[in-house]
């Protein structure tokens, strides 16, 4: 049965803005963004980043908000229902299946990472994380998450992830069980301001670190910020036998520069070279990384915004709300994350400590940094508790689309749908946590769902908005009740530029990261994800993909048989 307005609603406009921004703010804001910006040189990266924000971020965000609210007015809160109802094309509900599959599958491994954050916070508080070397930090991480062997993560001591996993799982479902406004909204109303305050406290600590090691004056906060934000990169390079110049190391700080110049003067095959901002902008990988960061950071293509917006009322301002939620995410990412983690890691560990993967920076380098700084036990706790809050607000948003879908497809209430989803995600999370060796299951699902399918879903959504609904009708939907309209130029951007930009990025990303084709050098080697499935089969990777297929089939089956999804004519349904 459909109604003329959504059954559950948000309690306040600020509530949904905090809930959506809470969904977007996660580990990527504090760990992935600073790593990418420093890798590519702040100036060039930020230029590509802001262009991607305007073309991809705002476009898809407004499209999702508008479609979600329109679907909610037709009585649907799940992605299959919304896409079917607002387009009047019943087969589009199958594309909407992605809007349920993506958040549910991501939740299965995200809750595991959420437990790491809580575990690290508690262990910092207990004084268990005072590392003297990188090997100690790596060993603790490996033992904590059970990286050595399958099944090793199921330990329940304070230095193992098991207890924390159970705790965060219960917390998430307790909040979801309480409902939209009494659970998600209420938690985000307190968690998001608390997260920002904690980040500001840690930021002040980082900015006042000075030069911790007087014997190595180049390692200071100013150079840490320079490593992150300087528009040019300075490299020491060596000429190979073939005549090409290869990077020996990056140089940051006057003393390092002086040493490098001296080193280069001793050999004609060595040189110190400054890479300018325009030269960096010609690097294709920089654009790919900037667009990818905008994409993954804003929670677009997750199926979350479209679900959250479906609980709005007819005249709620989605243009302002969308912009506000997006700007909150950007503030946390650029204004807080960009000043905090990489400068801190550089100040204590140098360039080697400030580079590396997101998890490497977060769970190896930064614990060492906090171990080394005065009052590090307290600041380590605050930082990881901040990450934990960010993770909870994100994981809650991953559950709500599944809850809405089960309520609609099985015609059951919230309590029963929470039980069903709890059962499904417990099995999925159990699978991911059991196969913890080398984090294979987590890594595989993250790649195929958390990266690949997100691209697909976002592309589907913007094409439906611009081409199926039509840009005129779409913008009219978005502007209803808005205190200011979507700028007119976005009609053109959302119809042509965003899909073209997305499809280009997606094609290049797939070429490079799936088929392993290096566009610059022309060399090819299949990615490990492809090899795991088809060339050098890996059982865990194959089972992980099978799990994705099983869950997708289950959702598609429910979408097929559900009475509520039996749409008939365009713009109408049978109910």
């Amino acid at each position, binding site marked *: 049965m459909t109604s003329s307005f959504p059954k559950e609603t948000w309690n306040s406009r600020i509530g949904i803005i905090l809930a959506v921004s809470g969904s977007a703010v996660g580990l990527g804001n504090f760990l992935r963004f600073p790593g990418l910006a420093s890798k590519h040189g702040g100036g060039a990266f930020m230029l590509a980043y802001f262009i991607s924000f305007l073309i991809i971020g705002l476009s898809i965000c407004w499209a999702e908000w508008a479609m979600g609210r329109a679907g909610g007015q037709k009585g649907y809160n799940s992605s299959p229902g919304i896409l079917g109802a607002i387009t009047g094309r019943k087969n589009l509900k199958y594309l909407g299946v992605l809007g349920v599959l993506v958040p549910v599958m991501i939740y299965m491994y995200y809750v595991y990472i959420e437990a790491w954050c809580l575990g690290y916070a508690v262990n910092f508080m207990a004084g268990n994380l005072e590392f003297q070397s990188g090997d100690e930090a790596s060993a603790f991480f490996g033992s904590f998450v059970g990286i050595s062997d399958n099944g090793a993560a199921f330990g329940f001591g304070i230095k193992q992830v098991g207890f924390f996993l159970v705790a965060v799982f219960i917390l998430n479902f307790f909040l979801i069980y309480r409902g939209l*406004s009494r659970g998600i909204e209420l938690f985000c109303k307190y968690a998001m301001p608390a997260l920002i305050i904690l980040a500001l406290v840690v930021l002040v600590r980082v900015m006042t670190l000075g030069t911790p090691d007087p014997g190595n004056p180049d390692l200071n906060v100013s150079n840490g910020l320079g490593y992150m934000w300087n528009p040019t990169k300075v490299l020491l390079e060596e000429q190979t036998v073939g005549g090409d110049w290869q990077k020996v190391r990056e140089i940051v700080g006057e003393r390092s520069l002086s040493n490098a110049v001296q080193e280069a003067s001793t050999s004609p095959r060595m040189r110190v070279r400054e890479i300018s901002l325009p030269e960096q902008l010609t690097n294709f990988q920089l654009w790919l990384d900037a667009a990818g960061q905008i994409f993954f950071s804003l929670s677009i293509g997750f199926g979350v915004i479209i679900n959250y917006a479906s609980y709005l009322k007819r005249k709620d301002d989605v243009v302002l709300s969308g912009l506000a939620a997006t700007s909150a995410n950007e*503030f946390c990412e650029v204004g807080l994350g960009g000043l905090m983690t990489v400068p801190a890691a550089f100040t204590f560990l140098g360039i080697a400590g400030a580079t590396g993967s997101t998890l490497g920076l977060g769970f190896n380098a930064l614990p060492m940094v906090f171990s080394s700084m005065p009052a590090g036990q307290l600041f380590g706790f605050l930082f990881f508790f901040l990450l934990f809050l960010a993770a909870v607000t994100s994981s809650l948003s991953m559950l709500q689309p599944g809850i809405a879908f089960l309520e609609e497809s099985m015609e059951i209430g*919230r309590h029963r749908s929470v039980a069903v989803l709890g059962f499904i995600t417990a099995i999925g999370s159990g699978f991911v946590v059991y196969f913890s060796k080398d984090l294979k299951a987590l890594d595989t699902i993250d790649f195929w769902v958390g990266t690949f399918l997100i691209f697909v879903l976002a592309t589907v959504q913007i094409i439906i908005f611009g081409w199926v609904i039509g840009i005129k009708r779409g913008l009219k939907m978005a502007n209803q*009740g808005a205190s200011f309209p979507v700028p007119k130029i976005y009609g053109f951007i959302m119809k042509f530029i965003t899909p073209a930009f997305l499809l280009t990025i997606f094609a290049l990303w797939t070429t490079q990261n799936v088929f392993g084709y290096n566009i610059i050098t022309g060399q090819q080697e299949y990615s490990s994800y492809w090899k795991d499935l088809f060339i050098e089969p890996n059982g865990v990777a194959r089972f992980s993909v099978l799990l994705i297929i099983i869950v997708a089939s289950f959702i598609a089956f429910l979408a097929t048989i559900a009475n509520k999804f039996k749409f008939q004519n365009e713009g109408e349904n049978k109910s």
Partner: protein
Amino acid sequence: MNLGGWIIMLISVGSVTSLFCWCIYKVLLTPEQEGDIHRFEIETPDTEHK
């Protein structure tokens, strides 16, 4: 950090912070539409069936 780094950092951080503050200002001070009053929804489909 060199002068270029300072400029880029200040522009980047300043622009996102200004946008965020402006949005919060607009959200808090713009009155909601008439007839658009939210209510605190306690009732869920489960309770409805009882």
